[in-house]
């Protein structure tokens, strides 16, 4: 191993260094100058983007390199996902600042823990061995557990963190058990070596499938698909909105990468086995997520169930086992993060006087209070429902197209039918905003950076829909080989 190999991990090293720097700088700052922490965190994320892009291979999009004895992998898929993750994290930092200030929780811990979670996500995206997948996952999870309990005086937050921690640990245990079985059957921790061992003739099918079942359970817990979804609504509701924003939008990118690396790179030869498992999981999620969301009056819970159904769509893209399917899933996960960030940002925007705007009634008559923010939220809701022109439509369309190409007609039919069912609760929010009268006359105030970020986010939701070609091409190219 030489130095240029280590430099493949330069973005990770940079984020880690800056997280430690922020930790130390905070000790020497007075309370009224905490804004510097926010600036440092933004700079960290933006420079991480430059470092990731600096590598010459981003531009031709075919370069694949490994470092640290093949346990760390740089490939086009990972780079695209990382760049998009930085963008979402930057948005989250802008949104969260105004939330944290308003609720008197503006401390440096939020930024250090978020950056450590980001580091875990980056390592998970680049992981090429079972060990690195597990460690990246634990780093991400541990930081997010702490973030959920960030509001220490909130009993709901502590309860959510406790549930998240216990269920998350159980999922990690399942994943680890599956990994140990896979290791026992193939004799290697490296995903490429596992892939080679699985495709050889001497493979031990029973133990491999046994390990695979546990891997899928662990993955399903982390993604939050039915029947391993119970923690999602409670955690989304209990965590402070600024934190929910982070855990809803950001770690899903890593979960996608983890699922791809484990299932395709490692166990691609067992496609027939995991295809059925994923098909069942995704159908259940799409059905239950969309139906249960109708009954919610709390918008954080509603978005949680909507997340469950979106995760079902992402797993649906895995079922065909083709490059088109993975590309569609990757596009879906990026689009999902973009829409979720905007939706939670609106909740933060409407929160006032120390009360989170988490009830559907808080959205009543938003159009009369501020028509631009109402338009942004309406676009996000249309997009989540899968209305054409908006970006969410193309994501759903690509996934369903890939499913149909693989000849899984009934999966596609269920997905389409329950998307239509799901449109009800998204459009209900639009109805509340445009056709009901507001309950309060409190003016909506937002800082300049917040309204700029939210406007950009909203414009992207429709802009990436109208000009959807480039991003789809980038996603598809990542799996062309």
């Amino acid at each position, binding site marked *: 191993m030489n130095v240029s190999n280590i430099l493949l991990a330069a973005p990770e090293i940079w984020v880690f260094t800056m997280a430690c720097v922020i930790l130390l700088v905070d000790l020497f700052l007075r309370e009224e100058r905490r804004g510097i922490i926010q600036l440092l965190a933004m700079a960290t994320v933006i420079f991480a983007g430059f470092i990731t892009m600096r590598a010459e291979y981003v531009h031709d999009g075919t370069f694949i390199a490994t470092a640290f004895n093949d346990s760390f992998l740089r490939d086009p898929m990972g780079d695209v996902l990382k760049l998009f993750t930085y963008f979402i994290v930057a948005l989250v930092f802008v949104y969260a600042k105004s939330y944290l200030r308003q609720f008197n929780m503006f401390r440096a811990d939020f930024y250090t*823990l978020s950056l*450590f979670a980001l580091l875990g996500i980056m390592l998970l995206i680049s992981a090429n*061995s079972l060990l*690195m997948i597990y*460690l990246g996952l634990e780093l991400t999870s*541990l930081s997010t*557990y*702490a973030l959920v309990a960030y509001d*220490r005086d909130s009993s709901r937050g502590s309860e959510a963190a406790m549930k998240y921690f216990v269920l998350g640990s159980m999922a990690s245990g399942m994943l680890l058990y599956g990994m140990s079985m896979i290791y026992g059957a193939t004799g290697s921790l490296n995903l490429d070596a596992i892939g080679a061992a699985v495709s050889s003739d001497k493979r*031990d099918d029973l133990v491999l499938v046994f390990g695979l079942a546990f891997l899928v359970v662990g993955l399903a817990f982390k993604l939050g698909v039915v029947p391993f979804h119970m923690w999602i609504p409670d955690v989304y509701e209990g965590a402070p909105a600024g934190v929910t924003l982070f855990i809803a939008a950001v770690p899903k990118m890593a979960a996608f990468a983890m699922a791809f690396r484990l299932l395709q790179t490692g166990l691609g030869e067992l496609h027939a086995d995991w295809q059925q498992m994923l098909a069942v999981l995704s159908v259940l999620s799409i059905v239950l997520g969309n139906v249960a969301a109708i009954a919610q009056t709390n918008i954080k819970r509603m978005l949680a169930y909507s997340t469950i159904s979106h995760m079902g769509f992402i797993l649906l893209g895995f079922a065909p086992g083709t490059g088109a399917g993975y590309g569609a899933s990757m596009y879906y996960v990026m689009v999902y993060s973009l829409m979720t960030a905007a939706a939670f940002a609106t909740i933060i925007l409407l929160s006032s006087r120390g009360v989170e705007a988490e009830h559907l009634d808080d959205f009543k008559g938003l159009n009369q209070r501020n028509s631009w923010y109402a338009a942004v939220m309406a676009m996000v809701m249309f997009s989540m429902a899968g209305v054409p022109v908006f970006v969410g439509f193309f994501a759903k369309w690509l996934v369903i197209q890939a499913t149909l190409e693989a000849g899984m007609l009934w999966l596609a039919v269920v997905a389409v039918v329950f998307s239509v069912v799901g449109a009800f609760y998204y459009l209900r929010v639009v109805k509340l905003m445009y056709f009901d009268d507001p309950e309060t006359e409190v003016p909506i105030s937002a800082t300049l950076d917040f309204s700029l970020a939210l406007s950009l986010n909203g414009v992207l939701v429709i802009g990436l829909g109208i000009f959807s070609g480039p991003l789809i091409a980038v996603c598809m190219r990542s799996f062309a080989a």
Partner: protein
Amino acid sequence: MPIVQIVFYAFALVLTAASVMVITVRNPVYAALFLVLAFFSSTAIWILLEAEFLAIVLVLVYVGAVMVLFLFVVMMLDINLAPLSEGFIRYLPAGVGVASIMATELMVVLWTRGRFDAAAFPIPAPHPQGYSNTKALGELLFTQYVLPFEVAGIILLVAIIAAIALTLRKRTGVKAQNPARQVMVQRDERMRVVSMKSEPRQDG
């Protein structure tokens, strides 16, 4: 039966029994002590495998530090156990049912066709004299596994940060001394000179 196998089975039995006791005894202090016993037995098994470094680390770190700390916490907190075991009997049938089905399935997979039999895993050849377990581990950790090793360190750092972020709080209204302020105190802050009019003496 060679002596190594007798020693192995003896310690394996003690280990299993101690582990069962850890989760069944009611008193958490006893449970912690049984856990110490379990660690000691597994240490002996490590030594049989010639992994002396791991054995010593297990004793030093787990028995010496972690368990002592754990005992302290258990004794200081004085946890009331009655609510914890509430509903135990009610959920017992379902729990036992699920557990036994899973255990049977596991055994069917793992024991059929001698996949994980003793024959499939022969006793490793003894190391030559002068072989250093510690050196071999160190070499691996700092070459092949350097990235996972560093990331594990970062996870521990995050654990520290999270623990401090969740528990350290500056409470207002706490009656604590501030020595710096005590030294810097001015006369005016402590003493008030009141000028009063002198009053005439009042004789009985």
